[in-house]
Structure formats: C-alpha cells, structure tokens
C-alpha cells in the first residue's frame, strides 16, 4: 500500500490544517463511543480468526502427530517432517513448484513488462479490447481451464492437429502423458492464465506515470531502452510487487490444474506440494504427513512473498 498521508493532492494539505481546528462536535449518538472501531472490526475479525488463523495454528499442531483421521492421534514430534524431507518425491514436488513459478509468475511478468514498454510509447487504438481479451482467461475456474487444455493437448486435439499439419504426423505427441513435456505444457497453461492479469495490472500502473517524466527522458536523449529502465520500470514498482506476490502464491499453490489434467503424472512429473498434501490427508489417511507438507508449503509461500516485498518495497 502507498502511505495515505503521502498523497499530494492540491488543497488537501490545507484542508488537513483546517481539520486540525476543533470543530463543534456532532451530536453524540448512543453506540457512537470510542469502542465503535472495535465493533466494526469484530465480525470480520471473528470469521478471520475462526476460519483462517486458528486453523493455521492447528495445522502446525497436526503436523506433530501421526493420525489416520479416525483413531487416536499419536505424538511423533518432528518425525513427520524428517520423513517428508527424506522422501525424494517431496523434493520433486517442490521442484515442480519452482518450474511452475518460472512459468506462471516470472515469465508473465517479463512478457507483460515488454508489452507495457512497447505500448506506453505508442498510442494504441482499441486498448480496452485487448485488455478485455487478455484478462478473460484469469476469470475462468482452473477446472474449466484444465478441461479446455486437456482437449488442446490431446493426441487428437487441436494443437497436435496444427503441429501435424505443419511438421507431419511424426511430430505429434500426447503432451500431457509425456515425461518431458507434461510439466512445460502445464506451465504454458499457467502463462495463459496469469499473463493477462499481470498485463492489465501493469498497464493501469503505467497510466499513472506522469507524462512529463517521459518528455524529460526524451529531451535528455534517452532511447526506448533507457526510457524503459529510467521511467517505466521504477514507476511500476508497486504494481510489480502486487503482480509478483499474487502470481507467486498462485504458482506455489498449483492444485486444480495437475489434478484435473495429469493427476500429477506421468509418475510424479507434475505432482505439486498441494496435490501431495491432498492425497496424503484425504486419500491415504496420513494426516500428519499431509499437515507437514502444508506447513512447509506455507513457509515457502511466506518466505517468497517476503522476498518479493523486500525487493520491490518502499525504500
């Protein structure tokens, strides 16, 4: 968030000073007490505490027990964690997450930055049309996205149809069943989902960059590249922070897409930590193991978000 006191709207500063002059107080109504802010926050806080905060703490607790969800839990301390860390599939799942992060977080931001750099120099007609089209995939349920791309990637599907037309039938392959291709194929789906969202966000930020900064850069003889690094990029810091934070969480949590396209396969090629957690808890009855994975995933997300906000935070 930008600090609200830092706004420099003309007139506002004066009105601030006026506001400091004690005004005749409005009638004090019952309930108009100094407890009002707490009363206003209370309902949200109750939902938030009951269904977010307490469950997180409980997840940390469950990770310390061996439990099948039915019989009495057995205290095992940190055993679940050492078991999870020793399992090569866990490491594999987090590696899958890294690949997803490259595709659905880093790549869309880079693409969107290039597009914004190009667009801010030109007057684009129909920009609102492009924005609508690019943002559309982000509004779809990932379950819908998964079904659409299962068809696109199918051996008889439309992408293989095009590949077969250009390169001959020998070049076609069942992308989602292929040990090498399954993960990058899902990564491209991730790009498709998030890049429009990132672009719309960055474009709206670019509109708020003062035009005279560009004029000044041009007077100083800056070319398109220098202009981008000197004006556009610094001007988009806040939007970059939001975009990277949201797509990073999205990438690390990836669950629906592999579940509904590849079931995490072939082998463990597209199994994410979320998918592992879900299987352990709700299919295999290993609640403690699943909780340990959930804890690790949460820690990774918090560290990642903190890193992004440190890198793009306010000075």
């Amino acid at each position, binding site marked *: 968030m930008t600090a609200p006191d830092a706004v420099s709207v003309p007139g506002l500063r004066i009105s601030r000073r006026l506001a400091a002059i004690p005004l005749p107080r409005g009638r004090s109504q019952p309930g108009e007490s100094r407890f009002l802010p707490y009363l206003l926050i209370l309902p949200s806080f109750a939902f938030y505490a009951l269904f977010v905060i307490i469950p997180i703490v409980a997840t940390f607790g469950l990770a310390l027990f061996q439990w099948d969800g039915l019989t009495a839990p057995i205290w095992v301390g940190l055993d679940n964690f050492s078991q999870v860390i020793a399992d090569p599939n866990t490491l594999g799942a987090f590696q899958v997450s890294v690949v997803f992060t490259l595709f659905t977080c880093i790549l869309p931001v880079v693409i969107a930055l290039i597009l914004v750099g190009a667009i801010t120099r030109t007057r684009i007609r129909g920009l609102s049309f492009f924005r609508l089209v690019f943002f*559309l995939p982000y509004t779809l349920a990932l379950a819908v996205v998964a079904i659409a791309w299962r068809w696109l990637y199918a051996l008889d599907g439309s992408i293989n149809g095009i590949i077969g037309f250009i390169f001959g039938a020998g070049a076609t392959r069942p992308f989602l069943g292929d040990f090498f291709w399954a993960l990058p194929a899902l990564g491209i789906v991730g790009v498709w989902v998030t890049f429009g969202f990132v672009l719309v966000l960055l474009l709206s930020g670019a509109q708020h960059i003062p035009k005279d900064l560009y004029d000044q850069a041009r007077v100083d003889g800056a070319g398109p590249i220098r202009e981008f690094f000197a004006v556009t990029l610094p001007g988009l810091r806040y939007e970059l922070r939001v975009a990277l934070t949201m797509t990073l969480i999205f990438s690390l949590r990836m669950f629906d897409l592999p579940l509904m396209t590849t079931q995490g396969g072939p082998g463990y090629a597209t199994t994410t930590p979320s998918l592992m957690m879900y299987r352990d808890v709700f299919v295999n009855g290993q609640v403690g193991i699943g909780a340990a994975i959930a804890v690790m995933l949460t820690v990774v997300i918090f560290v990642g978000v903190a890193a992004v906000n440190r890198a793009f935070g306010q000075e």
Partner: protein
Amino acid sequence: MVSRREQVLSYSILLAFTVFSLFPFISTTLVAFNQPNATVSGLAIPSPWSLGSFFAAWNDPDAGIGRSLFNSMILATVVVVASVFLSILAGYAFGTMKFRGSRFLFYFFLIGLVVPYEATIIPLYFEFRGLKLVDTYWSMILPDIGGSVAFGTFWMTSFFRSFPRELIDSAKTDGATRMQTLWRVIVPTAGAAIFALATILFIWTWNNLLLAIVMIANPQLQMAPAALNYFVGRQFGINYQVTCAAAILVAIPVMVVYYVLQRRYGADVLAGSLKG
C-alpha cells in the same frame, strides 16, 4: 515521435497475444458443438453444428451440472454479500478512525492475504466433520467468508484512506453520526471499488475447487468446479466434446458477471483499484 515501424511492431505483438489468448476459447467452443457421439480430431470444426453435447453434459444425471451451478450460485452470492458487508465495516474503521492497536490489527489481517487454503483446510475439514457440518453449505460458506474478509478489509481500507477527508468532516459538522456518514455519504460514491471487490470475490469463490472436493461428497450439494472434476474422473473424460460443453456451461456465469462489470467500470478497475 514514435516511428511507424515501432507502431506496427506494437500491434503485431498485441495481435500475437490476442491469438494466444483466444485460441483455447475458440478451439474449446468448436469441439463442444460437435455431436456427442462424433469422433473429433484436429480443429474439430463441427459438421453438422449441434447442441447435442451441451444437452448430454447438462442431462448427465450423475454429474448434475445444472444443480451444481445452482449450488455455486447460492454459495457465491452468500459469500460475496456477507464478505463485502463485513469488509466495508472493517475497512471503514481502519481507513478513517484512529484507535489503539489499529496498526497491529491491520497487519494481522494482512497475513490473510498470503495464507493458502492448503494451510487451513486439514483442521477445517476435521473440525467440520466433528460438528457434522461436512456436506452442508456451511462447510463452504464459513471458510470462504473467512478467506475473503482479509482481502476485502485490505481492499476497503485502501478505498477509505483515499476518500476525501473533508467530506467526512463536513458530514460530521452537519451532525451526522459516523454510521450515517458511512452509509449516506461514503458508500453511495464507492460503487466502483465495491463492485470490483465483489467481482474478485465472486470469481475466487466460484472457482475454489480444493474446498469443494474436500468438504462436499453429496452429489446433490456438489459445486460447479467439482462437478467438472467428476466429469473428468469418469470415462466421460475422453469424450472431449461433452466435457468441453460442460466446462463452457460452468464458465458462462463467471464470464457474464465479469463482462457486465467491466462494461460498467472498465477492466482495469479490477486491477487498478488495487492501488492503495
């Protein structure tokens, strides 16, 4: 001056990404208009065009797409209305009032922006199972509101902080209580921010698959994305035209909501209002 070459380049890039964005929509729509028993391949341009796959998807008794759309609509409506209302109240407090602990409490809410459902779903499931709330709307509504108010409070706080202070003060001078100021002065001008928040929460709630497949096992109460998962899980999964038709039926409500709101407020409201 920007050269003509640069302009052509910009449009070419935009056009290329338009194709990338739209191709999956077009291809999925094309295959869905094939007859349900046709063999489809390649671009699968329907011959003849047929609504048969949509009927097959809609009428499949086990998947229950229609019922699941109804369930999702109830869920999303309740969650969005409740969360927006609660977020306005909390945002009003954080955005316009000074009180002890406000900074701490606000940062405490911010944690919720980062918490994934993965971190909360395990105890939520077992707690709700213990309370016999699994397989009810409540098992979706309550956690979804909990997950929404953190973001909503953050969003509305940003809005209230940017609201002109002098309007609030003059309402006070006129003798309005703080609650009257909220509902009669501020909220009527907050349409764009509130509807943008409602849209985002609607999309998130509607699309939440993890919660839906964990909490709901009763087919009568199945949510729309979970119904799709059920479709894929059966041998129907390889009938691409029927699964794609089902996916389109589930996607339409969200796309309509998004389209209407962006017509009214502009697409960048969704993203742009994030600016605090």
